[in-house]
């Protein structure tokens, strides 16, 4: 895994750092409210929350503007980071006809065609061959494809990614590697890393932490040399599906990133104001959709 201290320069300035922080915080607040709504049974569908993994899509969205996004079941963070309609997302979680998928997709099956996000239907890793096919059909478009460490074990993933490499298709593959397939750790499932395998065929790859600074570096390095693959090691805070928690998360990237910003001299008051604003907007947003108590 590559370390940040090896980096020689920052790949983004203060404004971008703040933007990323805002997005991470926005996703976190949204997901916290989704959790609350699930816990009181307002949301009745199985829910796949992104809490703990927000920094990945928040950072990518700042530097990479895809024409199409193919994501997986844990897709709220991607949806929000790239500007998907949050009203429609809430309505989808609530199973309404006016949801982003008319209540047919639920939490794992969200989409927003206005941001090029194509619906996922729940089969692990299916978005990878679909993304590859879309790139083959429309090679002038840039594509973002996001999936998890479980998905890379699906037999059709390797063949899809290597096909993209053979045909030089413009796809940025992102693996949100939380080291868990439901609750089974990677070491119990396999003895290899996907990045080693892909390195073997000559594909540009990176295996990094979900630190925005690292992600920024690699996205900027790869985005004009696609296809490329970034494995982002992250920490899912809650269950695979649902809102439970078995243990205290080993890391909270939101807090880590905030501390790093403070250490760089960004004013705490500035961040606090951002947080208060997002919190308030988020509460108002959910209030519009949830049944009156």
């Amino acid at each position, binding site marked *: 895994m590559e370390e940040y201290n090896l980096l020689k320069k920052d790949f983004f300035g203060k404004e971008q750092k703040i933007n990323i922080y805002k997005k991470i915080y926005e996703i976190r607040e949204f997901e916290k409210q989704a959790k609350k709504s699930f816990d009181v049974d307002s949301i009745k569908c199985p829910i796949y929350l992104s809490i703990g993994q927000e920094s990945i899509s928040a950072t990518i969205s700042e530097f990479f503007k895809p024409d199409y996004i193919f994501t997986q079941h844990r897709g709220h963070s991607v949806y929000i980071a790239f500007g998907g309609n949050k009203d429609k997302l809430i309505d989808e979680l609530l199973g309404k006809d006016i949801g982003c998928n008319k209540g047919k997709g639920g939490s794992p099956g969200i989409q927003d065609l206005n941001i090029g996000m194509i*619906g996922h239907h729940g089969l692990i890793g*299916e978005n990878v061959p*679909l993304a*590859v*096919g879309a790139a*083959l059909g*429309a090679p002038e478009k840039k594509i973002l494809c996001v999936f998890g460490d479980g998905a890379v074990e699906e037999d059709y993933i390797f*063949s899809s990614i290597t096909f993209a490499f053979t045909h030089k298709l413009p796809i940025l593959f992102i693996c949100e590697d939380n080291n868990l397939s439901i609750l089974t750790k990677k070491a119990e499932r396999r003895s290899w890393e996907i990045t080693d395998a892909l390195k073997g065929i000559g594909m540009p790859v990176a295996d990094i932490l979900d630190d925005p600074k690292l992600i920024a570096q690699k996205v900027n390095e790869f985005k004009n040399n696609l296809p490329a693959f970034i494995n982002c090691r992250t920490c899912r805070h809650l269950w695979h599906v649902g809102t439970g928690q078995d243990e205290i998360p080993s890391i909270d990237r939101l807090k880590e990133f905030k501390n790093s910003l403070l250490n760089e001299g960004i004013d705490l008051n500035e961040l606090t104001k951002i947080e208060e604003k997002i919190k308030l907007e988020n509460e108002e947003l959910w209030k519009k959709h949830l049944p009156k108590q």
Partner: protein
Amino acid sequence: MEKTLAETIKEITKNHLELNNGLILGQCLSAVGWVNNTVPDTKNLVELPMTDVAGGGIAAGAAIVGRRPIFVVRFQDFMYLNSSMLINYAAKAKELFGISAPVFIRALATEKKGTGPTHSGIIHSMFMYAPGFRVCAPMTPGEYREIWKDFMEHDSPMFVSEHRHSFNQIDEIKDIILPDSQITIYGIGYARFNVLKALEILTRQGIKCNFINLLWLKPLKLTHEKIESLTKTKIGLVVDSGFEIAGASQSIAYELMKKTKIYVEALGAEDKPVGTAERYENGTPSVEKIVNKVKELIKLKD
């Protein structure tokens, strides 16, 4: 000179690739005879590696962005692997996401001559079962032109059950309606050729049968003309090359019975895997089997 079915497929494909910016994807398309000489050597042809699961997903992805790909699977048995993304995504996308994924799936069947357990299956029934597909089994140039037109007019994936033994076919297959027929036989796909041979034998033996072509399996286009014969003969038989149990023959026989309240039986491949040696072959019901079944049903009616 009139074109064979193979030449017709090749011509349609060539036009699609050159004029519509279409795509054709498949494994070994340009190898050994260009898929029985049905694939043109032109632009927009993509050789897939041995990606029997991912391939269907790649085709579906290309369909999402509007390329209307032709996805060629050289042996229909391979659809057990290739169908995952097609069934799970291409066929559902319109209903679930409002996204069209019109893939034209050319699934080639064959049988006999030692094609054995993995190269001789005819499994179009599986695609009738999965919601979202249009399913057909064209065996003539005219039928192929009809289903292609239908594909271009709709935005659903289409499962096209082809049979290699029909690729030299030039003539259209017409329905046969005779006065005082004793039974109505409905033929699906390649089984129609054996039904026609059986009819010759039955005619010589003085048994009169009506014969109805079923090009479309889903949506099942049971027009008034296709049902009227059954209401007159008062007994029917549906013959298919695919497996009989839970297959197209049984399903369509049920639909016909439901519509007419007249007894209709099904005849298809037996419920066992195909072996390589001749004695283990299992596919399109033989001419003899069809003749015997028709006689059995007429006896039952009497």
